[in-house]
Structure formats: C-alpha cells, structure tokens
C-alpha cells in the first residue's frame, strides 16, 4: 500500500487568454513528484479557445519536455467533413508518434453537433482501436452526455467532472450501470467514502483516480482514495492500474 502507483487521469497544462498563466509540463512533473504521482494524462488547458488543430500541435510540442515519458496526451477531434484534421488512419499514426493515446471533443466551443453523421467515422475507428474518449467538456451537461453516449454505446469513455462539487451519483450511476466501457475519473467527487460505494456497486475496475490539476490539487484525492475503505488491491486498481490497462490496450 505504501508504494501505490498513481496514474492521474485528468491534468491540463498550458496558458491562455481566459485561463491566464497556468503550469506547464515542468511544473506538472514537479507537482507529481511532490505528491508521488507516477504518470498522468494531459491535455492543453486552453483547447477550447485554441481550437483542436492548434491545441493538438501545442500539446505534442509540450510533451517533448517530458523526457522520462511519464505523460500521455489527449488530442481533440472535429467533424470529418471539413477536413481540418487528417483522416483517421493518418491521425492515429500521428498520435502514436507524439505519445497521444486518448481522444476528446469539445462540441460546445468548437461548435459542432456530436452526432453519428458528423463524427461517426472517427468514433467507430476509435472503438476498433480501443482509444478512450475523454469526456470533460460535457461536465455538467448531463442530458447531452446521456445522448452522446447512447449514440456510441460501444466506445470506451472516461468521464471526469470539474463543475460543481455537489455529489452527482444520481447522474453518474445510471451511466456506470448501463455502459460497461464507461469509466469514471473522480476529480472533484468528494462524497464521503463514496468511492467505496461506487466500487461495491459497479466494481473497482470502473473507477479512476484523477485530480483535475491545475484547478484541484493532486494530494487530497490521494488521501481520500487511500482511506475510502476498499481493500489494497481495489485501491491500487483505482489509483493507477485500471488506467494503465486501458491505455495498454490502445492500438495505434
């Protein structure tokens, strides 16, 4: 238990006009050292305003600072019709080259409708290759989230919330119950020993430690998990092993 392996599913780096000056890769790595976090998934913190193509370039460039390869990146995708990003096969080849193993979408700021006719092609390709779809922009948009997942029920999803601190079991549990490839990253989920209750109901293999850095601190979720009442094996799974396994199955 003392040497828990932690893999943070939800970090952002990079600055922007709205979010201001935020930590870069060096600062994130230093903070991971400070708390004893081994690895992390990162995206550019200003993807909404930068746009998918530019944010993808920038996060790939930033990841070069991580010489020990502790970070794994997220790239954003868009409807395929406008040809702003390469075709899926080429896109995935570039992902592999740049240590990117997750996809995400921001239909709100990037102004598109996340339907089968707009993004079905890339969602299907992601499903075939076990590439997880990281869901953060749907934070708090529960009706949209439900509709979106219903359209693509066989994809792998990692949902991390950051909006509000009111426990949202009433919304998250139906998703855990109905979609076996839906994983819950628990940034900002602070319900007392709620981690244990979710694991008891849906299995510890469906839950992921995630911080929400740089808005949330990595340490508090670590103590919350360590003392949530689950056994050592379950805690280790949530701390990092589940995410490690999901990402090891990605085929790029």
């Amino acid at each position, binding site marked *: 238990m003392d040497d828990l392996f932690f893999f943070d599913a939800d970090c952002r780096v990079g600055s922007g006009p709205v979010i201001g000056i935020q930590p870069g890769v060096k600062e994130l790595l230093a903070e991971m050292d400070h708390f*004893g976090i081994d690895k992390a998934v990162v995206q550019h913190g200003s993807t909404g305003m930068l746009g998918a193509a530019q944010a993808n370039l920038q996060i790939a460039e930033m990841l070069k600072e991580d010489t020990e390869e502790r970070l794994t990146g997220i790239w954003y995708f868009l409807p395929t019709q406008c040809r702003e990003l390469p075709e899926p096969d080429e896109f995935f080849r570039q992902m592999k080259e740049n240590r990117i193993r997750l996809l995400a979408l921001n239909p709100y700021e990037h102004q598109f409708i996340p339907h089968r006719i707009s993004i079905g092609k890339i969602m299907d390709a992601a499903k075939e290759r076990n590439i997880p779809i990281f869901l953060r922009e749907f934070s708090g948009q529960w009706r949209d989230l439900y509709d979106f997942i219903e359209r693509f029920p066989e994809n792998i999803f990692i949902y991390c919330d950051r909006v509000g601190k009111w426990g949202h079991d009433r919304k998250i549990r139906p998703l855990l119950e109905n979609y076996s490839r839906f994983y819950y990253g628990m940034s900002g989920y602070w*319900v*007392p020993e*709620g981690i244990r209750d979710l694991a008891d109901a849906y299995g510890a293999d469906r839950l992921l430690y995630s911080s929400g850095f740089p*808005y949330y*601190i990595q*340490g508090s979720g670590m103590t919350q998990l360590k003392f949530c009442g689950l056994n050592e094996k379950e805690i280790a799974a949530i701390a990092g092993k589940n995410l490690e396994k999901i990402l090891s199955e990605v085929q790029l």
Partner: protein
Amino acid sequence: MSTPIWKQPGTLAEQFWKNGKLDFPVYDMHGHMGSHYAIHFYRHTPELMAEHLRKAGVKHLAFSHHHVIMGDMRNAAVAEICKRFPDLYRMYVGIVPAFPENIKEDLAMFDQWTPYAIGLKFLPDYYRIPVTDKRWEPALKFADERKLPILVHTWGSSQYDGGPVMLEVAQKYPNAKFFLGHSLYGNWEYAERLVKETNNNVWLELTAIPGERKNIEMLVEKVGSERILFGTDLPWFDEFQGIGGVLSADISDDDKRNILCRNAETILGKDW
C-alpha cells in the same frame, strides 16, 4: 522522483498518510446531517457519520441538521441526537426566519442544550433573505449578547450573504463570533476585509476549499492561519479528502495545526 510529501519524516502529511489520523484532535466546524434533496450521500445518518468521523480522528463535528435548516424538524430533536453521541457531536441551532416562533422558543432553550449547542446557523442565500434583514435580528442579538458563534453560509457573489452585507452585520454585532462558511467563496478581497475591518470577531471557514489548488495558501497569506477554521459540510464531503486537502497545501505544519485544531480550541476552549 524526489521524496513525496507523504514520505517526509516527521511531517503531519507523513503521519496522516500512514495512519489516516493525526496525533492531535481535528475539529470539523461545518457539518450537517440527514438526507438532502439534490444529492445522494449514503453516509448521512448519525451512526454512519460517526463511524467516518472517528476513523479520520475528528473529535467534534459542529453541525446543523439538513431537516432543520431545509425542513421543519426542530432543534430539540437534534439535541437528542447529540446526547446519544456526547463525545462527538456539537450542534449549531438552526435559525429559520420563516418560523419566528420557533426561533423564540429555541433561543429560550439554548442553555438547556449545553454543552451540545455551541452556536447558531444561518443559511441566508438559500432563503433569499439578506443577513441584514430584520428577521435575523433576534438571533443576531442573542449571539452578540452571549458572544456566541454563528456559522453563516456565505458566498462571494451572493446579495444575501456576500461581502458587503456580511461586513455590515459583523460590524454591527461586534461580540458575536462570525464563522464565514465557505470563506465568502470567490470574493477573497472581502474575506480579508471581514477579518481585518471587524472587532476580531470573524473567522474564515474552509468548506469546499480544501482540494482546490493554491486557495488555502492564498487565504493564509491574506489573513493568517489563526483565522481559518476547518470544515467539510459532512455528509457532503469526505473527511480524508478535506484533511488531505489542508495537508496538501503549501503552508507550514504549524499553520495546518492551527486550521485543523488549535483555532477551534482558542475560540471554544480545550474541552468544548
């Protein structure tokens, strides 16, 4: 990797990581009890909350019952719950302006609820009644006369319990001890002013802040750790998350001890 905070010998972080407890009592100054209309939390009963609190080394939880401040349960019934857990629970008498007769009766009962009743609880934002409204006056006067704590739910952007109205009442009732629940969340400038422009009768309470990166550091910098109280809104938020959030902050162990333990003892005594 350098040595993580949880492994640095002799620190509070190391102690908590190892044992899930600290070698001093933690006081949670902002709690509730009972089910909530919008949130599922399983551990809301006196028994289950007690188990969670004891596991985390919390000596006292000062709370107001959800069904008092969001329903029509009476404070007398809460005192009965406290009596069943005399070493653990302390109550804020919930003040609901919609029931003025209840306020009168409950304040008259206050002394009979010693040592359980330690102060009053206001929730102005939820009722949309500014804390400066005359309907709060009987309770404010009562607390002022007896130098009692009032835990007020405060929110930076609120016209009901935000900065300007809180400053007005904290100055008008200089002997009441105002615990600003959530530290006037988001209006940090007024949080600082409330502490500095009053009669040393204001403390910032942290619920919802531990776990946020850099905010505890910022508050300690503004008002000093002596003016900050720990709280979790239990059963809303996990004690291990909350205490872990304080321990994760980049402040000294002395500051952490002030927040988690000493300040409550300074206000209420060692044996409250």
